């Protein structure tokens, strides 16, 4: 126990240290790498707290996809290569005094929060009992999935809406002007991609399926599939073109639409919205998960790609 506790302490310290390191890194690339490592350690910590679903999500999305997005942006900011120094500034750097005050205040706030945290009762019974009670009616056996797609399905729907909103905004913001092409992978990687892609697809499907009973589920699966798409983009296997737009739009909204339609569709006749008929609960949840997974994958890929495919005047390529 004590060894584990020591490990926990060490891990927690590493997490905090990496967080600090992330902020202190001079170089933007190093900063992003530190952030990704931070995410990995964080996932480890969450695994220690018996939260494998979260850990998975963090690795796949929090660290992985976010890291990829950051790197891609950095590449853009540096005009294609990752070696150049810099990164755009928001404003003039603040002076030492202000920084000191900021640090002091943030530290004070953290201390106050820490005190409050320590003052809070430990082990207050949460909702686990309710969850356990309601599990049989949820249609799935994995509690996290049950919470995500049944008990708090509304939140999840809105989460998908957030994703949808994100992709809409990203498409709206970026429209392919003065564009540096995404870094292409070498041929070796292309070969790797050829092998890796089918595997990843299968892994994603498995994650989706297993989500009903064990850690895994739509988001993780979507993240894996999204990674597949990202690989596809990087390896130029997938080349978004204006012609793809309707399809892309359809894919983005499919998850949200199906989710919401199901939610509404099951209502009536004494049932509330989102109240799946117990008999069809598993089917409906799977259906939703499947659609959401596809949408998430497409959305994440699109977020990575970062712009609506439009015809640009250069005519070289629809990027």
């Amino acid at each position, binding site marked *: 126990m004590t060894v584990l506790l020591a490990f926990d302490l060490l891990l927690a310290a590493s997490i905090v240290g990496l967080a600090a390191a992330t902020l202190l890194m001079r170089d933007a690339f190093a900063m992003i790498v530190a952030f990704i490592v931070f995410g990995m350690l964080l996932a480890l910590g969450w695994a220690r707290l018996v939260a494998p679903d979260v850990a998975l999500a963090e690795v796949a999305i929090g660290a992985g996809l976010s890291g990829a997005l950051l790197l891609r942006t950095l590449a853009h900011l540096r005009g294609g290569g990752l070696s150049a120094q810099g990164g755009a500034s928001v*404003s*003039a750097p*603040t*002076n030492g*005094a*202000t920084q000191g*005050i*900021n640090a002091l*205040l*943030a530290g*004070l*706030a953290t201390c*106050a*929060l820490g*005190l*409050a945290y320590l*003052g809070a*009762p430990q082990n*207050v*019974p949460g909702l686990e009992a*309710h969850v356990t009670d309601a599990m049989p009616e949820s249609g799935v056996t994995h509690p996290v999935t049950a919470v995500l797609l049944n008990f708090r399905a509304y939140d999840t729907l809105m989460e998908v809406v957030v994703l949808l909103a994100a992709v809409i905004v990203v498409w709206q913001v970026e429209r392919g002007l003065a564009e540096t092409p995404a870094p292409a992978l070498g041929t070796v990687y292309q070969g790797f991609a050829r092998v890796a892609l089918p595997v990843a697809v299968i892994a994603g499907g498995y994650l989706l399926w297993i989500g009903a009973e064990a850690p895994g589920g739509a988001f993780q699966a979507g993240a894996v599939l999204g990674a597949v798409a990202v690989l596809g983009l990087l390896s130029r296997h997938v080349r978004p073109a204006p012609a793809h737009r309707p399809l892309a739009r359809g894919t983005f909204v499919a998850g949200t639409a199906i989710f919401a339609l199901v939610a509404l569709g099951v209502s009536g006749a004494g049932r509330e919205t989102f109240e799946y008929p117990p008999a069809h609960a598993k089917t409906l949840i799977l259906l939703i998960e499947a659609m959401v997974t596809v949408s998430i994958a497409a959305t994440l890929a699109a977020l990575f790609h970062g712009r609506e495919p439009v015809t640009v005047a250069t005519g070289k390529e629809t990027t």
Partner: protein
Amino acid sequence: MPGLALLAAIGTPLGLALLLALPAARGLVWRALSFAPLPALALALFGTVPFTVSNDWLILGSVLGLDATARLFLIPAALVWTAAAAAARVWMAGDRRATGFGLCFLFAMTGNLGLFLADDAPTFYAFFALMSFSSYGLVLHARSEEALGAARLYIAFVLAGELALFAGLGLAVGETGSLMLADIADTALSVPTVALLLAGFGVKLGVMPLHFWLPPAHGAAPVPASAVLSGAMIKAGLFGIVATLPLGEAAYADLGVVVTAAGMVTIFAALLMGARETAPKTVLGFSSVSQMGIVALGIGAALMAPGAWGAVLPVLAFLAAHHALAKAGLFLGAGAFAVQHSPAARMAVTVALVLPALILAGMPLLSGALGKEALKTALGAGPAVWLPWITLALMLSGVATTLLMARFLVQLWRKRPAAPAGVESDGLVIPFVLLALAAAALPAIWPTVAGSAAQPIAEAAPGTPWPLVAGALIATAAAVASHTSRVGWSAVLSTLTAPAERAAARVGDALVRRRRALSRKARALPPALDGWIAEHRLGQTGIAALLVAVLVIGGAQHVAPTDPIAPPAAEQNGP
């Protein structure tokens, strides 16, 4: 000794006058001019009264002397002469007719001072005539059209007056059988005699309707001459009445009525006429006339009620002294004003002139007011029927005098008296100021001078300010009215509101400037703050600050109680 003193008193001016004939001595004479009255003054101040010195050899056996009453007249007269002589010396410094003037001046001085010392009728008459006729030269001095006219008028009246006086004195001497003035004054003279005497002295006094000569003469004469004409010589008329008429001995009701009525008319008519005058010195002349009206009231009352004389006489003496000093001061002041070159100096003189003007107008506690109050008290013993009217007249005379004084001060600026070029201003200002101060100090020094005769003055009420105030108000109103009639209503109103508006505008300007400065600062502040905040991204810092604040404030209430709240949370969290 008294003889020598008398000789000095009369002989000094007379001798100086004679010395003037010698061209070589003229400078000396002019330098000594202001010392000429001093022997007489010294005699009056330090001589033991009464005393008489008979000089049988002189004229009809002249008797000279000084009694208590004459002394009270002599002192102010000598003072006035001294001041006027000092003024005359500078005034005439560059005058080509200075010698003539000096001659007349010294003769008049001799006559004036001498008549107070005369004890018998012929001597008195002689001095009186000497004074009167030599004054003609004073009035005429300028030789201008105006001066000629005034002198003509003057001499006509002097002639008439002398005639009446001569007749009166003659009759009186006849009736009394003695040449001595004291005897004449003790005898119940016949009415015509008294009337003649009154007329004769009345001319000098300037009581209406015998006043016509006075204002023009005062206006036309050079300033020092005006001062003595008004300050000293008029009093000779009064002294004549006091010395010759059997006041307190017999009642002359009809004459009393005439004199009283004349006095009343004089007080106000002089105002009306004076108000129309433009020359400031003429205005002062009318003021003298008006003042003599007051004196006439006292005399008239004594004529009607002899019992009142005992009370009236000291008061009249005081009034005479008061008027002599104040009015002579005013005349010299007018001269002092005339010789100033800068407006500021003129303004200073004007301000100084306000003092004698106020004294004359009856400023409470000063001699004018005290004299009037004392006269009122004294007349309490006089004819009861007239008393209310007289009281009223005295009060209104304050108003009238105030108006005249205001008119004088205003006209001084409008129509500056003529003055010879190159006059040394100090030579006028100093006598003027001294006289004015003497007039102001009169109530204080009078008891030491007059002894028991000062009793009524010392006991007099301080006087009321309202005639003065009323006069000032009327004067202001009249000024405003006349100004308005000249420039129109709206201009007047604008003038009235102008200072307030200017002040308001100035304050407004200052405020506007202040406000502008402030608003400039206020305008500069937000951008500066903005820039500062943006530069340091303090908005961001604000987030943390607010968070800390809220957490600390929120947490504080949980720290305070020592016993941490540890409720069985489970109970709170049932489904």
